[in-house]
């Protein structure tokens, strides 16, 4: 188990020695989308204009914009998921702690006064 963790950490690719692509959520997807966007935009510009050097400029611009867009979109959804996860964890904790008591979050409010008396 420890060996598997160590081998997976050794294989992680770090961009500029700092950004861990494997272990950072959304990083790998963003960079792959960026690479694809770069190829598409560069190729499209070249096919439209036949200007080689400017096509490279378009490719770099496509890479940056696609990576940024994919990154922000994925991170936003990731953040929403983390908030939901935390709410669920808190809910489970509260449920476990307060089950059977008046503070039970899943307890439906009763119509009659007083509720159950134990």
């Amino acid at each position, binding site marked *: 188990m420890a060996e598997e963790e160590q081998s997976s950490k050794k294989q992680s690719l770090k961009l500029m020695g700092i*950004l861990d692509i494997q272990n950072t959520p959304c990083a790998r997807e963003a960079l792959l989308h960026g690479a694809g966007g770069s190829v598409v935009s560069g190729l499209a510009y070249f096919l439209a204009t036949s200007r080689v050097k400017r096509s490279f400029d378009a490719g770099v611009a496509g890479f*940056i914009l696609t990576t940024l867009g994919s990154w922000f979109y994925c991170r936003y959804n990731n953040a929403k998921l983390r908030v939901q996860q935390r709410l669920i964890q808190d809910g489970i904790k509260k449920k476990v702690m307060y089950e059977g008591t008046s503070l039970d979050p899943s307890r439906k409010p009763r119509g009659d006064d007083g509720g159950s008396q134990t």
Partner: protein
Amino acid sequence: MAHPSQLGFQDAASPVMEELLHFHDHALMIVFLISTLVLYIIVAMVTAKVTNKYIIDSQEIEIVWTVLPAVILTLIALPSLRILYLMDEINDPHLTVKAMGHQWYWSYEYTDYENLGFDSYMIPTQDLSPGQFRLLETDHRMVVPMESPIRVLVSAEDVLHSWAVPALGVKMDGVPGRLNQTAFIASRPGVFYGQCSEICGANHSFMPIVVEAVPLEHFENWSSLMLEDA
């Protein structure tokens, strides 16, 4: 804890530190892309063969390189401000611990229920047991219950100190005559190391902080034992 030649953060042990890690990844990706763009522009400028002497201005590019950085800065600032205010929230702490900085050790006081106080000195290198960490271990750890909000009141008895534990995302200056407040929640059990983070004299590097997060039952047993020994 930190490992040799580490460049990045330690694994998060508190929700605030998790958020800080996420924000760091976010800002780093933006920085990486800007660096890529700048590097590309430098290479393009250096390898350009044509020099155009007749360009006076260009409204389009001026607009682009004004609006785009403003948008990027906004996209960095919004999560940054969110975390800034998140770090200031202290919601009903279950325990308050006073951390007092001295030259050159920390002392901790748990005075919520009983009067428990003890000093925390670094274990010298020659007295370490096998497996212990050099310059990080202390004779008494600050033990706290896990998954509970803990308030830490930091001050100092003599000169400036700073109580910092990177894994918990906590750093607070200890100023003589002033009480600074910070809080954290240890989301998992473990031992978390930190070091004094404000220059305080000859042994500034030799007054570490060790926080041990344990289940509540273990914390109660520990505090009973500490009170008996006191």
